């Protein structure tokens, strides 16, 4: 009886009796969700356009962040000693990093994708894991494995509205995500390339028949998700410092992916928010009952629950079976 009360009643009583705190939990969840979405976006873009489940997305984020910090601090790649006059201003460093990520896209297309055309999805997935290893090693060799503080002037600190604490950093993150999504939306709907990408996503054969080069598409889409990786890298990097563990944020994006659907940009956002809020509420109001640290698996269970009702994810295309 007490157990039933503790599980089904107490948490809700708690929520309503401390509305300020509850709001803070929900806000916190939303903000965390945004951070997840930033990572998930990269996956979605590539999967949508090329059907590749790019596991190296996390490492790409790390690599981008490492490059950015390296450039800002004027580190000499591989030599790892800092030269003052090499240090770049933030904006310039970001531009150079973007260039690097685009270069990476070319390399990946040339060295990997082009040689694995129409292979099984799982083979391509495996290839991206191999890619992750390579990037990880190269990143470490190039920029060193110590923790680097990343400060591009994102506001920190907080302000309170009627007892609800709001982090400036998180507001900034949310804004960035919004802008990013807006840009992507414009890119996909307004630009010629964008439409081409959508065409490919909808039907490869058709796209090819109207003469859209798959290779070009790949390069573009990998560049774009490289850009997304950079944004994610900056956000997470300024939270925890730039270091190897940054690559593990990929794991945080997976439940978001299945929840939102591998092929849907809005899905990545909404999925992120749902996961964020869901896991925070679960952790804070139900976690203590079982000793906490439940959010990791809870995120996946939540996603799994959704899948049982929508096997293609919240926004994924409907799967139609026919013979």
């Amino acid at each position, binding site marked *: 009886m007490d157990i039933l009360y503790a599980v089904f009643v107490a948490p809700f009583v708690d929520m309503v009796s401390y509305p300020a705190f509850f709001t803070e939990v929900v806000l916190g969840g939303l903000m965390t969700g945004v951070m997840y979405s930033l990572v998930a976006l990269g996956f979605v873009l590539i999967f949508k356009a090329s059907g590749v489940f790019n596991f190296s997305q996390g490492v790409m984020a790390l690599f981008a962040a490492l490059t950015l910090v390296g450039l800002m601090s004027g580190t000499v790649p591989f030599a790892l000693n800092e030269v003052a006059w090499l240090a770049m201003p933030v904006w310039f460093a970001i531009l150079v990093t973007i260039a690097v990520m685009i270069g990476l896209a070319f390399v990946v297309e040339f060295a990997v994708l082009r040689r694995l055309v129409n292979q099984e999805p799982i083979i391509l997935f*495996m290839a991206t*894991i191999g890619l992750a290893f*390579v*990037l990880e090693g190269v990143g470490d060799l190039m920029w060193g494995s110590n923790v680097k503080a990343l400060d591009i002037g994102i506001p920190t600190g907080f302000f309170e509205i009627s007892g609800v604490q709001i982090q400036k950093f998180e507001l900034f993150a949310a804004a960035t995500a919004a802008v990013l999504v807006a840009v992507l939306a414009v890119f996909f709907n307004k630009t010629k390339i964008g439409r081409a990408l959508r065409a490919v996503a909808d039907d490869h054969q058709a796209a090819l028949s109207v003469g859209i080069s798959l290779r070009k598409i790949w390069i573009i889409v990998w560049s774009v998700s490289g850009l997304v990786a950079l944004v994610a890298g900056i956000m997470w990097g300024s939270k925890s410092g730039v270091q190897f563990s940054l690559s593990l944020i990929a794991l945080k994006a997976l439940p978001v992916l299945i929840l939102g659907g591998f092929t849907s940009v809005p899905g990545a956002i909404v999925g992120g928010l749902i996961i964020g809020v869901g896991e925070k509420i679960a952790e804070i109001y139900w976690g203590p009952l079982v000793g906490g*640290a439940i959010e990791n698996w809870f995120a996946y269970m939540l*996603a*799994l629950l959704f899948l*049982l009702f929508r*096997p293609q994810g919240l926004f994924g295309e409907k799967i139609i079976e026919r013979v």
Partner: protein
Amino acid sequence: MFYRETGQFKTSYAADQALLPIAQDRYALLATLVIAFLVVPLVANEYWFQAVLIPFLVFALAAIGLNILTGYCGQLSLGTGGFMAVGAYSAYKMTTNLPDLNIVFVVLISGVITAAVGILFGLPSLRIKGFYLAVATLAAQFFLLWVLNKFGWFVNYSPSGSIAIPPRQVFDVTVTSAHAAPVARYLITLSFVTVLALAAKNLVRGSIGRSWMAIRDMDVAAEIIGIKPLQTKLLAFAVSSFYVGVAGAMFLCFWLGTAETEAFDLLNVSFPVLFMIIIGGLGSILGSFLGSAFITLVPIFLTNAFVGGLGMQAVTAKHLEIIIFGSMIIFFLIVEPHGLARLWQIMKEKLRLWPFPY
């Protein structure tokens, strides 16, 4: 020249259905077993047993398990680590709480327990497919590890939450814990793996194996010709989990002796085992062995070659190792997307014609 089937005529369906229809293959297998059981124990030193051979065997078995599920039944899973952990912890609980139960049974029962858990987490596979299922199995991975890590009962309330296997004997020979001679641990592992690998081979070429492959190749058609999808998939989950569970139990009992849940986490087990079956070859028992060899041994050999051989700095070696390892994965996928097993087949087909290609 030497590898020919000419002159080997099959007089019965039985002969044609045999495990290895071609004589040379049978001899090869026999030779391998003789070497593994008789020669290796004489020549190998502790380093080879503990750091190379035993892990290779343990992971080969885990790979067979995953291959049954993913390679034969087409159900992608990333929960391997969780299931191995279940096997290991079951083995621990049984050995410590039922000291008289023979370790052989402990290991097998651990597999059965894991199979039950596997069925449970296989249920979503009725509706969820492909990468969605893969990520869904992560729920199992994380949940199982959390449970094992959270509740003291599983570790007999040891404050550190890590488990250590006590010494146990088979025919009065100690085979578990650091007190066991490495060769003893190697031999018992090898025996388990040999028997279970043969069993798996038989299973996948029988009617059950065919029903799995039918589901893999085209589940809709499979259902229309009279295969129950859920039952077949769950069976695959059960058998696969049994193998993975046994592998987990051996991981603890015959290899490391002590473990904590981190030892079974996603990046330590689930992914590597998936790499093994993809690199080795989906839907191939031999491939599971080749894959395990590749993933567990190549890094070790690279390091030793760099540090021991070329006298490189340990850290630089590690970085290069990671890079080369990654490139090798990509390279092999490009050369032969169907894995080392297929590469091996191609070589055999070449051999058949050699030295007269036409």
